[in-house]
């Protein structure tokens, strides 16, 4: 008895510790389970279809994939058909902000009732707005319904300037907040001690990696500091968003062409504004070649100026889009191969293929962020390089 009593407090302490650890792990497990359950729900059809809510044929799968790849005005986590045969959407609406012919209009996306093919028309002080394939259109004066031509283009409506907080914008803001939170805490940590603690230990080597492996060797010891802000921001921005895109929440931010164009334009302008005399000389008056050649090289070099950021934006866009499409296509194997392999077989095949590709996608997420930053710093390095050997 006495022994028991002496050991009891220790035992209790241990139990307390393990309990704490258990709660931490159980939280992780809970989140993982949640994510995976959402993932299984993501297999459900997001697209409201009047008759059949199941995605079975390859056309439907294709439509579903292209729907996911596009931006969305709602934040739908999953949807299902209830017993009455109605589509139920689980998620939340996002604000729509559009600049129409009558000025700025704002409302919540729930007013479209998840309709995405122009059947629901929202009337805002005489401005009739509708949503077709994730784009908001304003109906022409007097029209009450959208009419389509053979190629399913709206004939009596035109696109408006859409500054909505779409799912993509939510993803961007989320990534931005995560970065600000994570890295400002790392920065604050340095005030206390020169060695970071906690999560900063993970972040610091990444920052050092960008600095020592990407910026320094490509830009050069002399100039690299000036560009660190841009390069670090872009690297973590792309990486975090690529990784967010792999979660079943279903962000597809870096697979939006507008996003990659914007990122590449940043690189483009930074390169042009920091290009030194040598850089411009190499474009407009190439040294060391005959005069005729110099003139012939001007258009080529100017084209090269533009193709560099263009390759950046296409590479990122195409890689992420392809990755998402492949993952979803492999998930769809569950349905397409059901007849050939049976339910269990198609599920198993789909599971392992998706798992395999997802692992590769995790690598690609980093790789694309790395390549974008790497090439940006390479282009900057070429612009600020001093040619003393000419």
């Amino acid at each position, binding site marked *: 008895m006495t022994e028991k009593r002496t050991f009891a407090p220790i035992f209790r302490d241990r139990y307390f510790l393990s309990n704490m650890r258990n709660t931490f792990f159980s939280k992780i497990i809970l989140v993982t389970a949640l994510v995976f359950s959402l993932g299984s729900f993501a297999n459900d059809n997001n697209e409201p279809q009047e008759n059949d809510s199941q995605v079975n044929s390859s056309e439907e799968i294709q439509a579903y994939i292209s729907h996911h790849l*596009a*931006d969305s005005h709602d934040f739908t986590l999953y949807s299902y058909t209830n017993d009455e045969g109605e589509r139920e959407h689980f998620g939340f609406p996002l604000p729509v902000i*559009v600049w129409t012919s009558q000025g700025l209009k704002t409302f919540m996306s729930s007013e479209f009732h998840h309709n995405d093919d122009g059947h629901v028309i929202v009337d805002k002080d005489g401005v009739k707005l509708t949503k077709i394939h994730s*784009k908001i259109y304003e109906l022409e004066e007097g029209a009450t319904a959208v009419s389509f031509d053979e190629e399913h283009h709206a004939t009596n409506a035109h696109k408006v*300037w*859409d*500054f*909505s907080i*779409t799912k*993509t*914008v939510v993803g*961007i*803001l989320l990534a*931005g907040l995560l*970065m*600000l939170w994570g*890295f*400002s805490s*790392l*920065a*604050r940590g*340095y*005030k206390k001690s*020169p*060695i970071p603690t906690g999560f900063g230990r993970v972040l*610091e080597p990444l*920052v*050092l990696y960008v*600095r020592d492996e990407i910026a320094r060797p490509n830009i050069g010891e002399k100039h690299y*500091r000036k560009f*660190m*802000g*841009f390069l*670090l*921001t872009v690297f973590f*921005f792309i990486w975090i968003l690529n990784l967010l895109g792999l979660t079943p929440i279903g962000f597809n931010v870096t697979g*939006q*062409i*507008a*996003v990659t*164009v*914007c*990122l590449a*334009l*940043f690189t483009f302008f930074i390169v042009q504004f920091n290009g030194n005399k040598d850089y411009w000389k190499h474009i407009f008056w190439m040294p060391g070649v005959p005069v005729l050649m110099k003139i012939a090289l001007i258009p080529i070099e100017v084209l090269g100026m533009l193709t560099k950021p263009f390759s950046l934006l296409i590479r990122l866009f195409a890689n992420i889009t392809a990755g998402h499409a492949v993952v979803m296509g492999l998930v769809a194997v569950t349905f397409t191969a059901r007849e050939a392999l049976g339910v269990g077989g198609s599920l198993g095949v789909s599971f392992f293929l998706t798992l395999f590709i997802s692992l590769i996608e995790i690598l690609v997420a980093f790789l694309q962020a790395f390549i974008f930053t790497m090439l940006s710093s390479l282009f900057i390095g070429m612009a600020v390089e001093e040619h003393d050997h000419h």
Partner: protein
Amino acid sequence: MDQLLNDFSPGLFFMLLIILLVLIFLMVKFAWKPIMNALNEREDGIKSALEEAENARKEMQNLQADNERLLQEARAERDAMLKEAREIKEKIVADAKEQSIIEGDKIIAQAQATIESEKKAAVADIKNQVANLSVEIAEKVIKEQLSNNDKQLKLVEDMVGDIKLN
């Protein structure tokens, strides 16, 4: 390409443009600048600490070398001193031996000379005494002989026979 252009949302583009500009500004202000400064400071600190350690090590090495050299010198000096002392000792001993031999010879020679002179003196003394005795004897003999001629002769003869010179 048509699809791509259709997918391009100018609204999203401008949203991102503004968000990115703000994000870069905020990140530079609150994260990258302090992080970069802290990292550089830390690296400079490490570099200077390493340099200091290297300098200290070199200094230690120098000191050690100095010590070693001093020790070597001291040892050499000690050896030299010992050697010198040994030489001196040997020399002293040799000198002393030689001196003593010379001294002994001298004493012996002196003793011999003394003995010689003593002997000469003794012989001379004996000769004197013999002469005196012989004179005295001669006187007595003569006195006796003078009374008896035969006796005188016999006495002289006996006396002379008694006196034997060593």
